[in-house]
């Protein structure tokens, strides 16, 4: 059953990926301006022959379907050609930045869930009481506040006024550990370097909280409503009637069931953490994929933009796959229904 489940889900993602790649490919051709001109924009005067030569080199003189097939074939192997703005292969630029973003996303993810799951469950236990009402207001703020605004407020308050936390960058450069995974906290741990770890964490806190806030708000609401539904079900009453202690009734039986529908929201929100971090990385001058994307767009660096967009799409698809898998682990009925 598991093999079928996983196989089928993987197969179902193929059309999504093809669709996204097509859109990414076409946007490059539909946007005004000639890529070659963009590429040569900074190169001064070039001859028409040189332009034609470049066109042929990048296969831009071929029919669109052929170009797409070529693009796809290369993309699959991770070859997006050279970045216009940096002159290095796009893959290289991205792999250099990816660990920073992964690290930040992971922190934001952990913070969001660590806050949202207990908060949502607690709110559901006593709906409309003080904790629930407080959580509702805070969640509403979390959802409606523009992310960068919270970032700026935190930055001014905790960084500039109180000087508790650094306001930009990933780590104090003097302390940077030798890069093994590229994630400073992990590398610092591997090197057993406490000072580097502290510096990396201090740099992570503000952007991570800023990113986690809207996700925590959404997930809290979702856990709350899902939990309220589950708590009203017979099996919860039956668990109590069997004499199970309340923490077990709520923490095991009710929560497990309440998390099943929540997993999807968590996946979507995590996707948004990954892809929606451009503004926040820019605000905190955090050298990750988001900031790279902003810079690439500003520089009309099409190959880089394409690669980043595809990366986002793939991670969305991957997250949704993971969500399905987790749901299937939590609930046997999901396993069967989707197998």
């Amino acid at each position, binding site marked *: 059953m598991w093999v079928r489940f996983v196989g089928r889900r993987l197969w179902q993602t193929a059309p999504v990926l093809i669709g996204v790649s097509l859109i990414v490919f076409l946007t490059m051709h539909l946007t005004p301006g000639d890529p070659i001109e963009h590429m040569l924009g900074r190169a001064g005067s070039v001859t028409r022959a040189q332009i034609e030569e470049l066109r042929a080199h990048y296969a831009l003189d071929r029919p669109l379907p052929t170009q797409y097939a070529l693009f796809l074939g290369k993309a699959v192997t991770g070859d997006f050609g050279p970045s216009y703005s940096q002159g290095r292969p796009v893959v290289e630029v991205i792999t250099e930045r990816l660990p920073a973003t992964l690290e930040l996303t992971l922190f934001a993810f952990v913070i969001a869930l660590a806050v949202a799951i207990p908060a949502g469950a607690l709110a559901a236990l006593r709906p409309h009481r003080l904790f629930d009402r407080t959580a509702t207001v805070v969640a509403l703020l979390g959802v409606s506040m523009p992310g960068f605004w919270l970032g700026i407020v935190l930055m001014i308050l905790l960084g500039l006024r109180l000087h508790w936390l650094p306001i930009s960058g990933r780590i104090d450069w003097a302390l940077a550990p030798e890069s093994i995974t590229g994630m400073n906290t992990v590398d610092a741990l591997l090197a057993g370097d406490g000072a580097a770890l502290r510096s990396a964490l201090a740099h992570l806190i503000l952007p991570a909280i800023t990113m986690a806030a809207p996700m925590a708000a959404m997930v809290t609401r979702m856990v709350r409503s899902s939990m309220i539904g589950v708590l009203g079900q017979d099996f919860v*009453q039956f668990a*109590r009637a*069997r*004499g199970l202690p309340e923490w077990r009734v709520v923490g095991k039986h009710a929560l497990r*069931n309440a998390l099943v529908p929540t997993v999807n929201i968590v996946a979507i929100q995590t996707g948004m953490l990954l892809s929606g971090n451009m503004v926040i990385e820019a605000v905190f001058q955090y050298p990750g994929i988001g900031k790279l994307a902003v810079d690439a767009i500003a520089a009309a660096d099409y190959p880089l933009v394409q690669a980043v967009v595809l990366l986002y799409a793939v991670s969305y698809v991957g997250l949704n796959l993971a969500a399905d898998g987790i749901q299937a682990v*939590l*609930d046997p*009925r999901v396993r069967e229904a989707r197998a």
Partner: protein
Amino acid sequence: MSVDVRHEALQTVTKPLQVEERRQGAPILAVKKLRTCFDTYRGQVRAVDGISLSVRPGETVALVGESGCGKSAAALSIMRLVPPPGRITGGQVIFDGQDLLALSRAEMRRIRGRRIAMVFQDPLTALNPTLRVGAQLVETLATQGAARGRAARQRAVALLDAVGIPAAAERMRAYPHELSGGMRQRVVIAMAIAGQPDLVIADEPTTALDVTLQAQIMELLAKLKEERGLAILLITHDLGIVANFADRAAVMYAGQIVAEGPVADLVREPLHPYARGLLRCVPRLGRPDVPIHPIHGSVPDMVAPPAGCRFAPRCPEAMPQCRQEMPVLKRQPPTARTIRQNSEGESLARGGTVRRVRCHLHPGEGGNGR
């Protein structure tokens, strides 16, 4: 289907019993003037409005009445599991000599499962859909301190076996939705008896099952009752089940008990007009010539129940007095049947002799307006 005790481990589970002796003893459960209401935006729903009821060891007492009359609310009140916005507002639930309503939460939790167990109406929703039935049964045993680890697994298999689940050891790995309705209810019953309770409250245990399974499940409960000397509070609106399986019955209407007595009396000589009405709703097997008469109208709004007798708006025998004065539950003279059985020294016959009715037509022997 016969359900026999096949597993040795079960010998330790089964209690030695002298059912007939215990039937005459003190009640294991005595509910006194219990009140439970739900606070809604429309006002207080008085779901349980001062009911009194007792169950002796080895006895099956049925609680019958139309949908919405407060049967489940009464059952959940006894377990102290009324969901918000409901709350118990008064009365006592004396179980084995102690008032459950006076216990701390922790003390009450130790009563649940170990002393009083519950069987729910719909076995599909009563089991956690995401966990294997074996795990849920083992968890129950572990919580109740009955057994842990391997011993608990063995005990769980023995319990599934005892409730008539074939290939019990394999079924342990099944998820609830993989079992049929009847099997699921057997699992629920196995979980209910896991803690060797003295009293099982079965809230419409067969309503969600199809007819052929209903008798099987009731027979299983009856058998477990005999084997283990259980007391059963059986909530149902199926008078056929009441007639076949209960010793005594209490008829509930709009949060109150309106009639109570031995089942034989209730079925043969119902005194209360509502009880008579309920009986006329039951189709008679093989007697299509006997017409069915549904009770007209519907249960009253429990936020503002009618003044006087709550059944008056629907009662074919209502008198002017009925609309002004609430009748009290009064003891009625014994029927010829119980007199005869008494004289024959059969005073322990099913359900005893006492019957009470709440109706102006039956002023009764006075006093004892419980």
